[in-house]
């Protein structure tokens, strides 16, 4: 689950985005079924696929994954809620993860975090900007300690090192860039 305070979600407009249905999920997982001795393994790839539709998972997405994999929606939700990069509530269009673990902290991650939170108008717990474009969230060690402090946009290649100013500029550019077609978080 993302580390987003509840009040941040009000800023996001669900708009026209739809959920996936069971047939779409099946189309994605049927080709790889033979790679797993048990169908339950398909739940995680199915969830990640369903999430690419709009960047988070709705009730309907979870039901569709359950139907396609043969498990209850409750079970699927339970699995999804365990992981940081599966979102059961809406996020901004782009999710910016700021690593705050020790190596990045020693090189200024906290200053980058504070600056980005202030710029985006969210609390120090992180959150989504009012225009719904950017979600700022804390991340645990992203494995880019050689480029500390680092940021990751969605599931793109992590970048760094950043200063507060360069991070601000980076997010500005991100905001202005066109939306992705698929949302890999």
């Amino acid at each position, binding site marked *: 689950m993302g580390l987003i305070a509840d009040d941040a979600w009000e800023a996001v407009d669900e708009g026209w985005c739809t959920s996936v249905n069971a047939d779409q999920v099946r189309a994605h997982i049927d080709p790889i079924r033979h790679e797993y001795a048990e169908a339950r393994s398909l739940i995680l790839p199915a969830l990640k696929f369903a999430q690419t539709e709009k960047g988070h998972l709705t009730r309907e997405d979870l039901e569709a994954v359950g139907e396609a994999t043969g498990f209850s929606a409750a079970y699927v*939700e*339970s699995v999804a*809620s365990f992981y940081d990069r599966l979102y059961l509530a809406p996020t901004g269009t782009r999710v910016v993860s700021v690593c705050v673990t020790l190596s990045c902290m020693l090189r200024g991650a906290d200053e980058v975090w504070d600056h980005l939170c202030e710029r985006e108008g969210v609390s120090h717990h992180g959150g989504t900007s009012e225009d719904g474009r950017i979600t700022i969230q804390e991340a645990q060690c992203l494995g880019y300690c050689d480029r500390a402090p680092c940021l990751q946009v969605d599931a793109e290649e992590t970048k760094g090192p950043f200063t507060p100013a360069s991070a601000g500029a980076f997010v500005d550019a991100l905001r202005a860039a066109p939306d992705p077609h698929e949302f890999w978080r």
Partner: protein
Amino acid sequence: MADYAPVDRAADNMVTFELNGRTVSAPAGTILADAAYAAGVEIPIFCYEPRLGPPIGACRMCLVEIEGMRGMQTACSTPVTQDMVVRTNSPAAKDAQDGVLELLLAQHPLDCPVCDKGGECPLQDRTFKFGPGKSRFIEPKRHFPKPIELSSRIALDRERCISCFRCVRFSQDVAQDGQLTMQERGARSEITTFTGDAYEARFSGNITDICPVGALTSIPYRFVARPWDITNTPSVCGSCPVGCNTELTTRDGELKRITGRDTPNFAVEEGWLCDKGRWGYDVAMSPSRLTTPIVREAVGDRSVSIEDGVAAAASLLTGRRVGILLGGTATLEEAGIALDLAANGTLANAVLARLGVASGNCAPLRAVTGAQLGDIDAADLVVIVGGDPAAQQPIVELRVRKARRFGARVISCGARPHALESLGEFTRTAPGRLGDAIAGLGDAIAQASRPVILWDEADLASDPGAIEALSGLLAASPHATQLMLGADVNGAGLSALGVPTTGLYEAIAADEIDALMCVHADPLEAAGSVAWQTALDGFGGSVIAIATYASTMTERADLVLPALAMWEQEGTLVSMTNRAQRLRPGAAGPAQAAAGWEILIAIAHHLGHPPAYRTAASAFGHTVASHPAFRGVTPDLIGTDGAVVGAWPTADTHPAAIVADADHLVLVATRDAFGDDMTARSHALRTAVSAPVLRMHPATAQALWLNDHDRAVLVSDAGNSTALSVRCDTRVAEGVIVGPLGAPGHPIEGALARNQHQALVRVERA
């Protein structure tokens, strides 16, 4: 509730090991926590519950020192070995126990004064025995909105939860309803359903028994009583033919709660209950409960005292040709006394009969070695012939799912779809053709080592071909055991006493009866209701109804005598597995009501023939124990765990087979445990009620010009049903209609012949 598994101290393969300096023994491979408990040493546990499957070692409460093993081991996952040296009370072990409790209590709210679990709470008990006296945790504790309604019957208090996973494992692994899960991670973990949904499942109540804290509590029991105010009485449930063992909680003479037994009966229900058996008792306090005798006269109805009522009954019966009709829930004592009064001249030549499935031709199946429900656990093949056990005998579902979890193969065959079919292979058969599918089971049964064959009494009673096929198969398979999925609560008991299903109706129709006494029987709501209605319309004699709840029959009766409910009386019931079990009273009941057996004895007194027996136990001894089926059986022998009784003699005529033809469909009735009067009248079970519908294949519906949700009436030679809503279901065999037996308003009984649960019908749009 069970916590530790029982240990057989007399097994062959015992090992000895050292426990806190003492030498103790247990069978090889016994889990250390269980072996220690059996030897009188409590190793504290929380997440360990052997009935839920292999241990998970999550709570860490049972850490002990074992010599030669590095670090500490969880006793719940360690089997005992010869010469093992175990210390559960060393300084290290005590510190570990203290530590786990301190960590659990760190986030646990100080709710004891307002928590229903207080006084019977494993967390409290273990904290006293093994835990710290003071808390060192000064941080703010985590908070959740509390309590929330997990369902209309269960309250969830997430702050109290200690994440032992028992409830989740029950839902996912035992009941396999897939609804209850853990969400989030770490210290934010919380028990939940699919967000926003209620936990609606037929066995949901068991999580309130196994929760070791007050996180999951019964809403009907909320703030009702404290453990030191109550007495607990072991009894059995009389709601379905399974006969789960229960524990009745009584306060001030009132039944306040029903739970599973602290010591589960592994031969029957394994400590689990279905929600109906757990919470349905509030029907005894519902408006339909009869509280005083009612005398019906031309001028109106009069309430009288029970003494006056009994006297009135005697005067209605004196010198008459009496007929006594017993319902499926009548106890052995009631039947035995009725038989005795007929035989000894008190009610000279009284004609006795019972309402129930005429299954005398199933006798050859009953003659084969019978299994108890517990024997399903060890089966490597479970065959389900006909029936719908999940609906009609709920606890069977848990047993079969358990066998499947342990690798058993499950094969089903029958006309109606049911929940357990998905556990294995199934063959859909047309009614009357069940024998063909049974014949195909030969190979599977031969290949299995411990096959158990569950067969539905009502279905096979209408299918002599199936009975022949199955008894032939059983005869050829001496390693197989059979288990009857019974149709009536005490059907096995009443037929063992030789009470037939026929004879009385015929006598009434032939004007040979001039006083009818119904004991827990309502023929106007049973199969063949139309025929009974006609017979009673033309009946000029008196009708006495001994009943607990108002019904069509109590309205028709000239005299109503209120009987105690099953939770209020002594009595013996024989389960569908031939297990005689005792009902014990857990409540006083209305002042002007009396147990059915008491009423019969009192009537006998008023008729001038006081019997030699005055109590239920002595009535049993005088009237029941002399029957061949009950030789050697005494109430003491039955005790709290029950006793398996002997072979069951034949007492019935054989109804004709029901086979579909071109002009008719076959109505197959299912008695959904959660679709009957009791569930409908119970306030606690209000969200668990199944709606009564007619299920048929879409092709069948189409041929009848019916759509989903249209209303239809069934027409048969026995009579008409009332209108019911149609549901299309591709899993139902073509030419079959599945209808609800016992549904409130009793819509389909009119289309069934007496004592049969299948009929040839035509369908008309309503």
